[in-house]
């Protein structure tokens, strides 16, 4: 019901290496991979949720063996074909190299800074009224699955499924990734910061007052 990217709480990964002197891009191709991904995204053929889902649905074997930017490249190649921007013959080097119908939309060098500065806010007006108020007890749905698409994108991590917490604050109404990743519309709804005691999530919490806060959409929650 969940996918390999959903790794919060997993055991066995070993120490974190802080690598204090690591450059922003450890390899030149890392920088290139990031830039190709952002520039291809500017063609407007998919949204942020679609591209996250493209990386998440790499096979578990690929997800584990690929480094970070390799996942980005694989997700991008898959999306380019899936959305019809390229076909598979393009990826094998047998494709037509002529100008693409979408070429007019290519991100130009002098438009880059403005495009990055503009960003893409996720808050939208919504007719879904907030059901919960700060302090109210809530429980997350279980299992942590997309309710509309089997195996689809969702942002409720498995470790927090079925957990009881309380509303910390309302962030406003935001695009719902569960629909937006699958071409089912933005369906904006209330988004909350929800606090969970560590003892609700883990068998052996480190400290009795520790908490984990997650940003969760209203449809992930029910009153508790």
């Amino acid at each position, binding site marked *: 019901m969940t996918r390999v990217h*959903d*790794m*919060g*709480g*997993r055991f066995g*990964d070993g120490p*974190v*290496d*802080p690598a204090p002197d690591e450059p*922003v*891009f450890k390899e030149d191709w890392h*920088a290139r991979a*990031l*830039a*190709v991904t952002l*520039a*291809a995204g500017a063609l407007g053929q998919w949204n942020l949720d679609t591209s996250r889902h493209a990386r*998440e649905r*790499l*096979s578990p074997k690929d997800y584990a063996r690929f*480094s*970070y930017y*390799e996942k980005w*490249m*694989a*997700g*991008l190649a*898959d999306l380019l*074909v899936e959305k019809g*921007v*390229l076909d*598979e013959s*393009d*990826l094998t*080097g*047998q*494709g037509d190299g002529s*100008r*693409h119908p*979408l*070429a007019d939309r*290519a991100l130009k*060098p002098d438009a*880059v800074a403005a495009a*990055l500065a503009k960003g893409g*806010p996720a808050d939208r007006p919504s007719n879904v009224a907030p059901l919960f108020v700060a302090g109210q007890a809530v429980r997350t749905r279980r299992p942590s699955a997309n309710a509309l698409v089997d195996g689809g994108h969702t942002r409720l*991590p498995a*470790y927090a499924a079925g957990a009881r917490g309380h509303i910390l604050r309302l*962030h406003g109404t*935001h*695009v719902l990734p569960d629909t937006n990743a699958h071409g089912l519309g933005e369906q904006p709804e209330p988004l909350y910061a929800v606090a969970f005691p*560590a003892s609700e999530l*883990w068998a052996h919490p*480190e*400290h009795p*007052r*520790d908490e984990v*806060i*997650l*940003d969760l959409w209203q449809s992930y929650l029910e009153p508790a």
Partner: protein
Amino acid sequence: MALDLGSASRKPDGMPHDHHDHDHPHSHLPPDPALRVKALETILTRKGLIDPAALDEIIDIYQNRIGPKNGAQVVARAWADPGFMHALTEDATAVIAEMGFYGRQGEHITAVANTDDTHNMVVCTLCSCYPWPLLGIPPGWYKSDAYRARAVREPRKVLADFGVSLPEDTAVRVWDSTAEMRYLVIPQRPAGTEGMSEEDLAALVTRDSMIGTGLPREPGQ
């Protein structure tokens, strides 16, 4: 004209066909990651879909222009000006945008201030969400499986990997960035910094202290 991508379509030896319906398109690209990126860039460039000069510009921005120095200015101002600190914890997006910091992966910002009682720490267990306009591109460790897996369950053990230990009675709040809200940790102002300028204060603010895996430098350190 066909493009020579070398062993592009060859599958690695001995790898069983484990996709239940079809091969994923990415498997057509060369196995070497640097060549894989180069191949995609070349294909997209030939079709006019991307402009290599625009890629250079994107890289220059994130390598040289946008980074933790932005976030450090916000923290230093919060330390120096209680009114700003209050406004920051009320509506960080607005006051940070007024300082000129806004954009991709920083459209919605919440600032969380450390106190003697509570230490804040930020992670994205599902991917690598991070406040780009304030801190730049996330470091390798932030994107690592080990950090993503462990930060929510054993934050103190993760802090120990960074050489940080907290007082026993300090609680930890771990913020898992599951939506488009990005979190900036405001570390506690170090002792002995009274009367310092915002500029000098900003020099004490480390990247990791704004993620919650580090503490600011002490003056003179």
